């Protein structure tokens, strides 16, 4: 059965209109980032006529310390990802492969906390970090990110670990290996795709995290990119060219990861999980 040409045209027209609405704002942002010394709102016609240049990008990186903040964000995000994957996979492995008393009850308590909105915990979390003496340290931030995210990572990985065939463990047991060897030599290598997807989500969420970082980090030189961006906006509220150049510096790593691993985002994993509940 062939769909008639005018139906096809209408469908393509709607899809294209959707793409325009989605992309146009970003296109306009990129064009604005080429406008230098914009102390008043630039005219749309001037923006579309602008010649691409990197002046604002250089200014953001050199005069406004975005190079430094970028490295801070890399450090904060990198350690968070590694910690979340390592400790999350350990916990998920425990839940997936060990029988123990109270397992499902414990897991239900874990799941219950997922329903509690993050903003509700932010004040008491701050007091916990304060009593540990970790305000204004990356350690405090890492603890909140990794500890607070344990349930999500465990929940996500447990299903994948349970799908690993148990017979594979036998070879390790015959060689005299214990549960740690099974974890390292069987479960981790076989779950790399799931771990990869999780790594990307963790990266994306941590890279953009603003509110926790703002409450924990006080020293200017240790700030992360989202905070730096907010401060830049406060300082040069009308210099849109500079603000969007800095914004694009913030977005670039996420876009690169998105392009490189687009299949993980739009084709596999969590979508299927959703259907199966």
């Amino acid at each position, binding site marked *: 059965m062939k769909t008639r040409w005018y139906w096809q045209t209408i469908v393509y027209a709607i899809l294209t209109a959707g793409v325009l609405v989605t992309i146009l704002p970003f296109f306009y942002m990129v064009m604005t980032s080429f406008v230098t010394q914009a102390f008043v709102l630039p005219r749309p016609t001037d923006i579309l006529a602008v010649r691409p240049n990197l002046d604002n990008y250089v200014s953001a990186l050199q005069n406004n310390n975005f190079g430094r903040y970028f490295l801070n964000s890399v450090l904060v995000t990198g350690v968070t990802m590694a910690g979340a994957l390592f400790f999350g996979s350990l916990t998920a492995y425990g839940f997936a492969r060990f029988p123990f008393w109270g397992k499902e009850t414990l897991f239900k308590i874990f799941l219950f906390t997922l329903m509690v909105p993050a903003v509700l915990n932010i*004040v008491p979390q701050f007091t916990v970090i304060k009593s540990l003496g970790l305000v204004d340290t990356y350690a405090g931030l890492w603890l909140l990110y990794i500890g607070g995210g344990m349930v999500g990572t465990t929940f996500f990985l447990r299903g994948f670990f349970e799908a690993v065939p148990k017979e594979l463990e036998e070879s390790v047991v015959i060689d005299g290996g214990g549960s740690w060897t099974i974890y390292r030599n069987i479960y981790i290598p076989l779950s790399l795709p799931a771990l990869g997807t999780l790594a990307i989500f963790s990266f994306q969420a941590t890279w953009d995290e603003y509110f926790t970082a703002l409450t924990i980090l006080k020293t200017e030189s240790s700030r992360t990119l989202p905070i730096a961006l907010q401060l830049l906006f406060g300082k040069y509220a009308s210099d849109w060219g500079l603000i969007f150049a800095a914004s694009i510096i913030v977005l670039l790593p996420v876009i690169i990861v998105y392009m490189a691993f687009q299949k993980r985002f739009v084709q596999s994993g969590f979508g299927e999980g959703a259907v199966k509940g």
Partner: protein
Amino acid sequence: MNKRLKLELQRWLAVLPYIAWGIIGTSVFVIYPMVKGIWMSFLDYKIMPGAESPFVGLDNYRKAFRSEFFWYAVRNTFLNTIVTVPLIMAVGLFLAVLVNLKFVKAKVAWRMVYYFPVITSWIVISYLFKYLFAGGEFGLVNYIFHVKLGWLPEPVNWLQNQWSGLVIIWTLHVFKTFGWAFIIYIAALQGIPQTLYEAAAIDGANGWRLFRNITLPLMKPVTIYVFINAVIGAFNIFPHVYFITGGGPLGRTQVLPVLIYKEAFDKFEFGYSAALAVMMGLTIFAITYYQQRKIGKYSVEY
């Protein structure tokens, strides 16, 4: 009995090195803060070391019910949910069905574009929308709809009025999240076996009838999933309001999460902030608990 106890103990000792991380992390940084938050909501909490935090019973809750700013935040939080959730679901499903049509080419490319706003940053998109909706003739939205098309009789001062401010916030919310619903829906659509359509087509069904009698019923479980997550997302509306209007003018565009944050970290009203948080948490819990339980049991069967 004793033997049994010993066995359970051994099992716990075996698993503890693995799950201890999750238990400690969740207890210290999620469960304890939650319990402490509830307790704080009954105190006039002082963050200064050594200062006393007297127990004030339900005073913080009473204060909320008497505050007009609280009611604006409640109104806007519910409004945001009522306006954006149906839009996100409708746009997501509509585009997913179109992209999933047999003759549509370059399916991955469409997906990548529609999902793009989801992966970008809340802060950046917030500034971008603030810029697009800038007042005067040169804000892009005013420029297109006033100068070029003439649909708006005069340039709108979007950020100065409560309703136009809310419109920006809703638009941004839909713009940033419809791609998520779209991706979930398209994964579900592709899970429907082609044989079902073929069988129905042999029976003479086509187009709209195939969609209504096969696609829609099979989309039900995933729709519930999308719905719950969209509702939770809409209730947790946070960064864009914070960055675009900050709740202004005069708290008229305020939403609960931002109010909670500002009462705590701008005004140091920790007890009051905690009381607001507890009420919001209970509301979300009431809405989602029942549905969340059902979700676990739902699955598509062909």
